[in-house]
């Protein structure tokens, strides 16, 4: 009799342990799923400076251009241009701004990386290295799909990276894990109205 009651106790213990573990696993998976659910990026004021990990960004103007813009010949005729003031917040010269802005719509599905042009002195250097603490005005130029109508206003997502003192592969410092920091909306001027042709 005592043996049976001992067995019952043990079974009860096993069952309780099993149920507890199952609940813990389910709660853990549920939390993980909730955690990976992308949150909508915060809405930012386009008239103010936006701080990302590497850059202090101030959007200046958005417009579409036809033919040529800032010394760049456009293959398919049209491009979307975003002008912005960029200040490098890191300790070293960088040109890691290729994915800083992402237009939400208004481009073809592939969303190629923009061509970035420095607007100082009209020399038009492409992919300029921006030095720490020195602000520069640059233009981000995305080609538009053929026959696409330019939107009247457009939302841009601003991305931010996080500093890691050592990466997992080589132990080198760097900026990783790009995440949206927010989004802002700018009116898009048609060709000829955005300050340049």
């Amino acid at each position, binding site marked *: 009799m005592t043996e049976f009651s001992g067995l019952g106790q043990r079974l009860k213990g096993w069952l309780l342990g099993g149920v507890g573990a199952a609940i813990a696993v389910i709660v853990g998976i549920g939390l993980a799923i909730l955690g990976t659910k992308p949150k909508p990026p915060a809405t930012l004021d386009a008239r103010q400076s936006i701080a990302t990990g590497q850059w202090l960004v101030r959007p200046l103007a958005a417009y579409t251009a036809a033919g040529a813009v800032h010394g760049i010949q456009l293959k398919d005729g049209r491009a979307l241009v975003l002008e912005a003031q960029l200040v490098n917040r890191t300790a*070293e*010269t960088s040109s890691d701004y290729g994915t800083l802005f992402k237009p939400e719509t208004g481009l073809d599905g592939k969303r190629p990386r923009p061509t970035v042009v420095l607007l*100082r002195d009209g*020399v038009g*250097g492409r992919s300029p290295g921006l*030095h720490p603490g020195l602000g520069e005005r640059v233009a981000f130029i995305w080609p538009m799909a053929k026959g696409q109508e330019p939107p009247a206003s457009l939302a841009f997502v601003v991305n931010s990276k996080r500093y890691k003192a*050592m990466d997992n592969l*080589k*132990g*080198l410092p760097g900026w990783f894990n790009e995440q949206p920091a927010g989004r802002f909306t700018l009116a898009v001027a048609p060709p000829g109205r955005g300050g340049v042709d």
Partner: protein
Amino acid sequence: MRVLMGVVVLGVAALLCYGLQASKPRPVDLARTVPVAGRQGETVRGRFLAGRVDKVEFARNLKVPFDREARTLTTDGLWVVVTLELEAMRQPVVLYRRTWNGPSGLTFHESDRAPAGLPTGFMVGQASRGRLVFEIRPEAASGASLHLSRDWISRFDSELRIDLDAIPRDPAGGPDVVDTLDLSLGGDA
């Protein structure tokens, strides 16, 4: 008592593991470039490269040749033109990392706006004289050093770190900054 002992042993083991992890050198510490220090005006010899900085000049604007005419380049900071001589020591060397390092640790790469005034390839027995152009923040002008290496992580290579302690100074002791420096004439480089 046995349980307590177990916890103590576990704690000691965890501390030991953390200590090993924290004190272990990273791969980059073991293999990265080895600094070779020197001063402005003297020839600094690294493993593959010897270099000497002759002159440092500061300017607010830079006049450079552009499409057969002179063009003025402006900056929010300062332009620095470093005149130097470099020579490969054992074999032909390609030098990619040329940086101006300010006293607070800011690292300015060679400017890509001004035309290149120094080749990237160097030969043995053939000294190349040229100039490097940087765009820096004004507070990075004094107490800076010039770092030259083939690459930041060229394994077991040396990096020349030349202290720029003989920069031109104004009467107040700050860096002497001219309004416009003309590089379109070729200069002495």
